Structures are given as C-alpha cells and as structure tokens.
C-alpha cells in the first residue's frame, strides 16, 4: 500500500551528464518497494508530482536509490536538494516487475536512457534468484552512460550509443540477436524504442515499463491511460502499470 511520507535525503550526486543519483532513507518505503515501482515525488512549488522509478533498494540500510535525468524545472529542482533535507513522496507507487511468476533461466533486459534505472533493481533481484541476466543499455552518448560497471558485475552487458562514442554505434535492437537466447525479456525506455523492441520480439514473452504524463499518480484522474484489448479498452499506467505484458497494451 502506498503512503505519503517525507523521505530523508542521504546523498545526491551527478553520475553522468545531467543524470543524478539520489539515495533516500525511509523504513516503510524501503520495506515495501519492489523493482519497477516508482516514487511520486514533489518538487517544491510544483502542482504535479514527478514519477521517478526506484532504481535499487537496500532493505538493511532502509534506503532506496533513484536516478533521474535533469530535463526540466521539476528535475532541476530535485537536483538542487541537499543531504539532510526531505523529499515529499507518495510511494511505493504502481506495480513492479512480476518476479515470482517467472521461473526463468536467462533474462534479457533492454533499457534506453532514463529507462535504465528500474532495470537495475530488477537485474539485481533476478541475479539473486539465480537468473542469468543479460543487459542491453542504450544511451545518447558516452557522457550519458551510467551504471555500466554495475550491470557488468551482474551479467553480460552490451552498451550502445546513438553517436557511437561508447560501445556499439546504433540502436538497442541491433544487439538483440547477438545477445543470444533468453526465456523472458524486460524493457524500459522511450516509446519508439519500446515499439521497436516489442515488434522485434513479438514472439517472445516479456514485460515493458511505460511512461506517461501523470496527474494524480494513483488511478483516479485517467491522465495516464494506455489502450489495450480488454473490455474497458484501457489500462492506467500509474496504477495498473507502469509494468505491462509486452503484448498486453497497444503502443
């Protein structure tokens, strides 16, 4: 069950170009959070909260870590926060990746840009379950790359960049064949990437995590709907998602 809490900021640092890592302390959130869920955080002076994925969870330290890219006013404001201050958060929000249901051997994770963070917590959790994790990470350029070494510690990791400044020059989809066999895939990133990925892997089971502009972040306002084939014709990303079966929604 999500709650509104003030999380204590333990650290804030820039880990790649315009990309911040923030570690937050809160016993309840750290205990309840699952990979793929998000925090719905308030940047002071703003009307709408910002959804930011939980990138990793440390239940012993009672912390969660988020990674975010500075793209506008809200994230700029978050980046200015200092350790010791608090962050007004509604969380853990949404439904995370379904881990227990998948008794899998090898998982392929495909992340693009700021879609990478939720995959890190997932990779970690899968790895702990003994799953063989392979990851393809796409970034704009070398300067934007983060968490490469961390993923490498978990399993085979491919990096691609739009400009070729690090790893393969091109798109994540270029690498999928090279990455070889897997039982299940997980993907998170911009919609064009997700479209390409789900198209390429249409015959494989997988999950994707979606983004949309949100109002309430809790399922009440219908701002964040995505069409599907169900009777109602839609799902709500904030409360039914953000994780969906790869072929369960109409991108």
């Amino acid at each position, binding site marked *: *069950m*999500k*709650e*509104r809490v003030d999380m204590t900021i333990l650290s804030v640092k820039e880990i790649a170009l315009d990309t911040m890592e923030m570690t937050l302390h809160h016993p309840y959130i750290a205990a309840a959070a699952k990979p793929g869920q998000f925090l719905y955080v*308030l940047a002071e002076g*703003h*009307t*709408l*909260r910002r959804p930011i994925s939980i990138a990793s969870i440390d239940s012993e330290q009672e912390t969660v870590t988020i990674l975010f890219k500075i793209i506008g006013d*809200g994230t700029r404001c978050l980046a200015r926060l200092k350790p010791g201050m608090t962050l007004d958060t*509604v969380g853990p929000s949404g439904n995370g990746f379904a881990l227990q249901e998948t008794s899998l051997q090898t998982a392929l994770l495909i992340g693009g840009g700021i879609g990478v963070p939720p995959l890190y917590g997932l990779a970690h959790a899968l790895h702990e379950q003994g799953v063989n994790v392979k990851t393809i990470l796409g970034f704009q350029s070398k300067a934007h790359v983060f968490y490469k070494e961390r993923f490498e510690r978990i399993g085979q990791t491919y990096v691609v960049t739009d400009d070729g400044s690090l790893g393969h020059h091109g798109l994540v989809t270029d690498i999928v064949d090279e990455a070889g066999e897997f039982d299940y895939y997980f993907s998170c990133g911009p919609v064009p990437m997700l479209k390409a990925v789900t198209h390429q892997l249409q015959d494989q089971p997988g999950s994707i995590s979606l983004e*949309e*502009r*949100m*109002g*309430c*972040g*809790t*399922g*009440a*306002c*219908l*701002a*964040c*709907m*995505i*069409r599907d084939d169900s009777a*109602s*014709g*839609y799902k709500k990303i904030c*409360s039914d998602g953000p994780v969906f079966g790869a072929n369960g929604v109409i991108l």
Partner: protein
Amino acid sequence: MTNLAVDLPGLRLKNPVMPASGCFGFGREYSDFYDLNKLGAVIMKAATGEARLGNATPRVAETASGMLNAIGLQNPGVEQIIASEVSFLEGYHVPVVANVAGSTIQEYVTVAEAFNKTPSVSALELNISCPNVKEGGIQFGSDPDMAAKVTEHVKAVSHLPVYVKLSPNTSDIVAMAKAVEQAGADGLSMINTLTGMQIHLASQKPTLANKTGGLSGQAIKPVAIRMIYAVKPHISIPIIGMGGIAEAEDVLEFMLAGASAVAVGTANFTNPYTCPEMINRLPGVLQQYGYESVQDAIGRGHNE
C-alpha cells in the same frame, strides 16, 4: 465548537469540503489514503450515456501554479458507474453527487434519469462546461439560452436537486447564472476550468494531444473568487465554489465570496491528503478570523 455543517438542496453536509468532479475518480483510489467518511460529500467523475475512451495522451501538462487537462470525459458509462462505482460509495456515509455530461440534451436527460433511479445519489451536477470534448460540454455552457435549455430538460425528469456547473470562459458570468437559476437550477457549481494551452518547445507542438485543455489549480483562484462574488448578489440559490482551493484559508475565502460549500480538484494531486487536512484545519481558521460556523461566513465578503 465551530460548526462546519451546511445544508444545501439534497445535501446535508457535515463539512463543506468535497472532492471536485474528475479529480477523485469514484473515490476508490483515495480510500486507500484515508477514510472517505471524513469528506462533506463526494462528487463523482462525469458520466455519459455510453462508455467513452476520451482523448489521446498526453492528457495533462503542468503550468505555473496550475495544470492543464484534456481527459475528454473518459468514463465507463452511466449504467456501469451505477453498478460498480455508486455501489462502492454506498459503503460510506457521505452524500454522493453525480456529475452529468453529454453531447446532446437527450444524453444529459438519459444520464440524469438513470441517476434519479439510484437511491444513493443525492444530487446531480450538470457539467455544461467541459472544454475538452468536441460536442456538448462547453457549447452548452457558453450560451445562456442553451444552458437554460439543458437545465430545464434535466429538471423536468429529475426529482434530485440539480447543480449547474458553469464555465469561466464567458464574458458575462452573471447572465449565465441568472439564466440557469431561471431555468430551475437548485444550485450552481463554479467554476470549471479556463481553456488554455501549452506549447512544448522541443516538439513544436501543443503538449496535450487535444491541443487545448482546461486550466485548473491555484492559478485560477482569483478568477473563481471574482465570478462567485459577481454572481452571488444576483441569485438566491447556493453556490458550490471551486477553482484553486488548496488550503483551509482558501475555503474561507470562497465562503466570504459567496460559496456555501467548496470542491477541491487539482490540490488532491499535489497532496492526496489535501481534503482531510483542510477539514481538520478549517475550525481553527474559522476561529482565527472570528467565525463560529461555516454558515456564518457565507457571503460575508460582501459587507461594506
């Protein structure tokens, strides 16, 4: 003891604070955060005759002290709402207000009739001011004659009190208010959203897929206060005030302007506990400014 109760046509409110239509769904989600029994009433999301899927996304954008929305009246249709949503709200001791929308007068009438057959609905709010649909909605709300006509037709089939929700996108709000009172409205809801737009610089396009959207939140409070203050002396039916309410102080400001009760929309998004926190603070704020009851404050900003 400060008395928060207000009696309005069809609505015995234990306090004057209710969530605004469309910002609270049918209550289910917020019932995870707090006990809905704390609320004065619940105003449900708009209902239309058939299910609607609404507009394409993005449907919301943030603006300075406000937001734009273009949900487009997405809802599962009146029958489904009665079957699964009103029944959920029956579990609480709060009056339920049904927000009624449509593309034609007939659709308004059909929806109104359905809610009239639902004992747990206490009042109707006629949404003639939705700026986010191509047909109906604001069309009815920008012309006093049309507004009067839809009010009359709904009143003709409704034993439930009818609150007509006015649009601020007009040069003469007093004329609109008088026209719907004349047509039989039991109360007014003011204000719906102002039509607005944001252009996303990187994509060179409006941020919202629907291009325009409704502006709500604290940014519009001065417009709401002014319209309620302007209308109040010209009508004798009560006003449910809304538009940018975020604090208990705002509730009092709306009361002074002439509202008898208030609805809270956008502020629920900023803080899901806005309504109960506001209700808790309201007695203290009333006392601070010398009022013993909510009733006492209504319209007091008009004293010379």
